[in-house]
Structures are given as C-alpha cells and as structure tokens.
C-alpha cells in the first residue's frame, strides 16, 4: 500500500463507524419499540372513543381465537374497561371477502350495541370493495348503534337481500361479507356476554 497511514485511518474509521451505529441502535431501540407499540395500539383503538376506556384493552384478552362462526372467524377478543367496569368488548374478526380475507375490529358496548367497526386489513378491489378501508369510514358508520335485537335477525342483510343495510355500490360480496361478520360478532357477544365481560370483574 502506498499510504499505510491512510489505511490505518480507514480501519479506525470503520471501527468507529460500526461502534457508533451499534451504540446508537442499542440506545434508541427501546424508544423505537415503544413508539411502534403506541402506533399499533392507536390504530387499533381508534375504533373506541377515547373517553370509553382507561385500561390497555389490547393487554386484556378475553377470547383466544381462532373460533369459527357461521360466516366468519373470531381471531381474538379484548376487554376495555373504565373505572374497573367493562365498557366495551373488541372482537377481531376475519371474513372471506371478494379478493381475500378481510380483518375487522368490532367494538361492542356491554349492552350489545355496536360502538364501531374498523377494517384492519383488506385486499378488496381498489375503487369498489376497498371503500371499507380508511378511518373514519362512512359506510361502516351505518352499523354504529345497531345491535342483535335492533334490527331483528332478518333485518341484518343488504337491501337487495331484503335487509336494512345499503351496500357499497359495485361491491356486493364485500358488503355482504362485512355485514355477516358484524352480525356474527354480535350474535357471539349476545350468547357469551358473561364470559366476555365478566372475566375482568373477577380479576
């Protein structure tokens, strides 16, 4: 080598570079992980109004999936509490859509009314079925306040199936899949209310 001093500087620089990168990584890893966790939590919990809960619902699972229902599969359930009282149950549901599976988060209050439905993952046709994505979502808001009793089971269908709900134009399969998944979740909640909301009370 023509320049041994330069080689020494290079080796030193590489060692310093590796060291600096390593220690920066160690030093920031904790904070980065905490932020990732917070972002994931926030995107899931958007479905609940902030004044509805004061616990960490995702840290309080009440249902371990998968659990097959009539038209969908429950992947898990979480309990939101406020002042120690159950305030909502979050059910993670998966339903077969038009293109692939749709993952929904369905929030139900202790009386069995829907607080909100949010699409966590979907791969429906862009411009048609993909309208179920995004938050807040106009079409999914139609479910808010509904329960298993209101409307009756027969009303839990799209207008073209003689039910009460409008569909997303051009996306019947997607709309029907979401609607049936929501209905499934409500039915499951109704039948397992004590199990879903009672666990926390005993804890």
């Amino acid at each position, binding site marked *: 080598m*023509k*320049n041994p*001093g*330069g*080689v020494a*500087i*290079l080796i030193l*620089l*590489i060692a*310093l*570079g*590796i060291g*600096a*990168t390593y220690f*920066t*990584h160690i*030093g*920031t890893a904790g*904070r*980065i992980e905490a*932020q*990732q966790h917070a*972002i994931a939590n926030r995107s899931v919990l958007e479905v609940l109004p902030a004044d509805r809960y004061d616990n960490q619902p995702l840290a309080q699972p009440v249902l371990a999936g998968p659990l097959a229902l009539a038209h969908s599969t429950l992947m898990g359930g979480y309990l939101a509490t406020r002042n120690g009282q159950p305030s909502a149950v979050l059910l993670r549901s998966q339903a077969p859509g038009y293109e692939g599976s749709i993952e929904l988060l369905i929030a139900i209050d202790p009386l069995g009314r829907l607080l909100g439905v949010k699409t966590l993952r979907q791969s429906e046709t862009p411009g048609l079925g993909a309208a179920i994505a995004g938050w807040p979502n106009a079409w999914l808001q139609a479910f808010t306040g509904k329960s298993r009793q209101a409307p009756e089971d027969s009303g839990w269908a799209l207008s073209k199936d003689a039910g009460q709900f409008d569909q997303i134009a051009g996306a019947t399969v997607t709309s029907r899949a979401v609607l049936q998944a929501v209905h499934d979740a409500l039915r499951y909640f109704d039948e397992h209310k004590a199990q879903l909301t009672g666990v926390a009370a005993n804890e």
Partner: protein
Amino acid sequence: MSKPWVLTQGLLLVPLVGASDSFAGALGLWLAWTLVILGHGSVMGLLRPRLTTYQRLLASVVLAATLATCAGFAVQAAALEMFQPLSLYFGWIALSCVVLEHEGFFAESSPPARLRLVGLFGLWMTGLGALRELIGSDIPMILLAPGGFILLGLLLAAHQAWTAVTPHSIVEEKPRP
C-alpha cells in the same frame, strides 16, 4: 471555486419530488440531511489530506453510512410516525454525501457556497412541502410523486420566466479578451 453549486448536483432532485408531500416531512429530512452533510464535510476535511483518492471514497462511504444510519435511528426514536414515509430517503442522505464528496463539493467549494446550496435546498424543500400540503387537500394528485414533479416543473418555469425578465448584466459585462 468558480463552479456554481446547483440543485441538480448531489442527487438533490430525488427527495425534492419524492419526500416533499408534507411540510414537516420535508423540513425534517432537510434538517437531517444538513446535519449529516455538515458532519460529513468537517470530518472529511480533516481526513482528506491524509488519504489517497481511492481511500477517500471508501472513507466517505463509511462515514456517510454511519452518520445517516445514526441520524435515522435518532429520528425514529424521536418521531417514528414522521420517519416511516421517509425511511427510504435516509439511505439517500448517505448517497447524497458520497456523491457530493465525489463531485468535490466539500473540497472545492467555499463555506458560503456550501451554505448557499444547503439554504437553497432547504428553501425548495420546505416551500414545495408547504405548497403541496396546501394544494393537496383540494387536489390529491399533487401529493403523489407525479403531482410533485408537475408542480416542481411549474415552479421552475415561473423561476425561469422571472430571471429572463431581469437583465443578464453579469454575463454580458464580463471582460472579453
């Protein structure tokens, strides 16, 4: 020394279109780029006389990668949400450093010329970021890369038209042999 340093050097046009869809993002990326480029420039200033041309390139690559990675970690720890759409451009910061070093930006330019380029780039980044964020709420297309390209083109055309109006005194008054 006489070479004017403009935005087409150092791959600066890449984030000008790609990462200027929000004001905060553009400002953050510019700040990170400025810090890394200043750090890179000052360390290379110390090392340059002691290295051969080939070693210089290696040192520049190692230094730029280290600084850009550390800056990336720091931004992730401070504001992960802002970082996520920009993650690609932190790799670009390192690339930009190496290209600028290779073009002789750190070795040949005077400190004012360096600051001028940094300021000019910052002005364009934040200006474009603010403009795209403003217009983007009405015309979502502006937030996509092609929209940014069109907007940049329009701004450059306006700039060109503006400079064409002012007399080219500097060029014409040059004494000729």
